[in-house]
């Protein structure tokens, strides 16, 4: 195999796996639900993008034509990750999950919780 292709694929794999690991480490170690929500949703999408780019390079090299399946998965993950993060934050807010003491703007959370659908 060409040396440069192998090097590029290896670098993308290591960087992507490191991002995935950092996301999960944040999920395990951070003190509060809202900070824990922030770690995997950002780090994991970036890590998955790197892994899928590596896979795209090597499959394109092996098969001889451009492989675009991985781009589909990347696009799907990039679209769905913010949606799930938003829904999880909304669930936690309405369930009154404990917030860290030093969080600023706690009154805003209370106000958002009590807001109802506007009447027509």
């Amino acid at each position, binding site marked *: *195999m060409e040396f440069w292709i*192998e*090097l590029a*694929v*290896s670098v993308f*794999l*290591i960087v*992507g*796996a*490191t991002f*995935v*690991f950092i*996301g*999960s*480490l944040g*999920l*395990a170690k951070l003190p509060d*639900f809202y900070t*824990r*929500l922030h770690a*995997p949703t950002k780090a*994991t*999408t970036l*890590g*998955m993008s790197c*892994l*899928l780019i*590596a*896979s795209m390079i*090597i*499959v394109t090299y*092996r*098969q001889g034509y451009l*492989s675009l*399946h*991985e781009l*589909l*998965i990347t696009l*799907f*993950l990039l679209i*769905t990750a913010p*949606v*799930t993060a938003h*829904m*999880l934050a*909304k*669930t*936690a807010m*309405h*369930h009154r*999950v404990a917030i860290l003491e030093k969080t600023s703007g706690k009154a805003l959370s209370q106000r958002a919780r009590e807001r109802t659908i506007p009447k027509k």
Partner: protein
Amino acid sequence: MLSGAITIASALVCISLILNLWRLFKGPDLSDRILALDTMYINSIALIILFGISIGSALYFEAALLIAMLGFVSTTAMCKYVLRGDIIE
């Protein structure tokens, strides 16, 4: 070099799956557990793709795409159920 990189990446992804499992069991709240499941399915997609690279088969991308779609739908359904007590109103 490539096989070494695949081994290291697989080890990192497996460790992160174990960390997710720990959060899934420990998680003080229901939303923590849903978040841990969400991260677990994304990490399992990563593991499947690494397996596909190491075997050299393009067959596993369909499985990864299916897991991505079903994982998103299941996370959304769980959030909706916890939030409203109903999935489709």
